């Protein structure tokens, strides 16, 4: 009975985090992007500096009609948002935010593999949406999504493998337990590769070729309306939370902080995640979209060699120590 209660509470907390953090990041994006462009951003919803803008957006999306195009493959079209969103919820379950046993939704032995595997499934949602919409732009968006995923999954895996090698384990809390501060400069290349590839996997600018609105409207999500569209958007922001959290855990030392981890571990994790999320927004504002061939070139000729070099470096240092 106690166990069941414990599991239920954990699931509830993770679910709440899953619903709240993406909204917080979305709101931050509204405001940060606005100020980086000399604007104010939303100011009305909720009264104080438009804090409830995304809540208002959610209400708006819920009220809209859910349209399925006549030529679409109904069932797959309707299933796609769930396939896109659920993996991020699952991934959030295993990211540890503190050193104690209770600070993680569920400890998984092969944490890195779980996380990367499940996130790869999320892209399937975009592919399904792109194909089932019966729209040429959607199909193009789906194609670009697939090409991008294939290109960036590899450097991401290699960079994560480097950390796993350094720590000698593939479990996320295990990696954090083995973390030392000098891993930061040691794994910095891997961190950059991982973060960049993660951005590309989320299709965030400057890697947003699959949803390039000036050429293919909104890629795979063109035909979606109402709540299903909102789910895709939520998936994107949940993805930011997950990528930033993962980078924090794998490369930035998670709960380790300058003042010790006692009691403050969750704070350090959240702080690092928030800073990374800010960087994600910052990059979006600063850089223009990359072309498809530039995307592929970056992945295959820059990121993968860098990741391999990082693995070699990790191996050498590991042997020397």
């Amino acid at each position, binding site marked *: 009975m106690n166990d069941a209660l414990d599991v239920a509470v954990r699931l509830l907390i993770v679910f709440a985090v899953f619903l709240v953090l993406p909204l917080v990041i979305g709101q931050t994006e509204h405001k*940060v992007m*606005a*100020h*980086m*462009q*000399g*604007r*104010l951003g939303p*100011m009305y919803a909720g009264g104080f500096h438009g804090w409830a803008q995304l809540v208002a957006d959610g209400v708006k999306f819920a009220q809209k009609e859910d349209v399925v195009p006549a030529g679409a493959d109904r069932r797959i079209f309707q299933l796609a948002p769930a396939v896109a969103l659920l993996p991020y919820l699952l991934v959030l379950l295993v990211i540890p935010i503190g050193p104690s046993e209770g600070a993680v939704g569920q400890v998984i032995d092969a944490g890195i593999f779980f996380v990367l595997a499940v996130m790869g499934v999320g892209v399937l949602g975009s592919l399904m949406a792109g194909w089932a919409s019966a729209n040429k732009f959607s199909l193009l968006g789906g194609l670009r999504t697939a090409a991008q995923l294939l290109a960036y999954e590899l450097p991401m895996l290699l960079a994560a493998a480097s950390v796993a090698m350094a720590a000698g384990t593939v479990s996320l809390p295990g990696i954090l337990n083995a973390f030392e501060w000098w891993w930061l400069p040691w794994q910095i290349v891997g961190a950059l590769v991982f973060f960049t590839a993660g951005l590309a996997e989320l299709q965030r600018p400057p890697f947003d070729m699959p949803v390039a609105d000036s050429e293919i409207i909104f890629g795979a999500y063109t035909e979606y309306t109402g709540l299903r569209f909102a789910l895709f958007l939520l998936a994107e922001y949940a993805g930011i939370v997950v990528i930033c959290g993962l980078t924090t855990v794998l490369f930035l030392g998670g709960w380790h902080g300058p003042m010790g981890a006692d009691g403050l571990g969750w704070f350090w994790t959240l702080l690092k995640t928030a800073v990374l999320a800010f960087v994600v927004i*910052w*990059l979006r*504002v*600063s*850089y223009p979209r990359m072309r498809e061939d530039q995307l592929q070139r970056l992945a295959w000729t820059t990121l993968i060699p860098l990741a391999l070099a990082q693995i070699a470096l990790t191996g050498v240092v590991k042997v020397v120590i």
Partner: protein
Amino acid sequence: MSPIPGSGLAKGLAVTLRTMTKKTVTAQYPDAQPELPPRTRGVIGLFEENCTVCMLCARECPDWCIYIDSHKETTPPAAPGGRERSRNVLDRFAIDFSLCMYCGICIEVCPFDALFWSPEFEYAETDIRELTHERDKLREWMWTVPAPPALDPAAEEPKEIAAARKSAEKLAAARAASAAPAEPAPGGTAPAEPAPGKATPGEAAPPAGEGGQA
């Protein structure tokens, strides 16, 4: 190219970060009214006391958006045995702002200073027919017409002021001549040409007595 690879990328990031720390330029319009320059073309106000129904504005309007109705009234002769005077009385003066293209020709051609630009711009309607505004509304907008901006430092003085000053100087000279009949009249001012500005509309009479420019 740049000496350090990636310095361009860093520069881009620096630009956005610097912009974030600066003050925003957003105009929070409904909460804060915009600061409009004095010659803003917001709406056309009618100073109907000056209107003589000469119809110049209606004829010159490229859009034909000014509607004027009037009738003639005769007034009894001023002196006994004189002619009866007839004068035009304005019945209707309306501007259809759904047609108006804000060229300002009517204001330029008005010979009696009866039309003015006002910076007022919040007169949107939900029905296009309600954009035809009658003379009482146009008269109300007169109150929003700002005083004309001060002249440039070296500009010629307005001709009304020049004329008034000339007559005042003549008067002073005549007085001086009568008091001490020795000196000839002073050199006088430069010949006044038509000044570009218009008289202050808010005050009914031309400001003859006021001192001119700085």
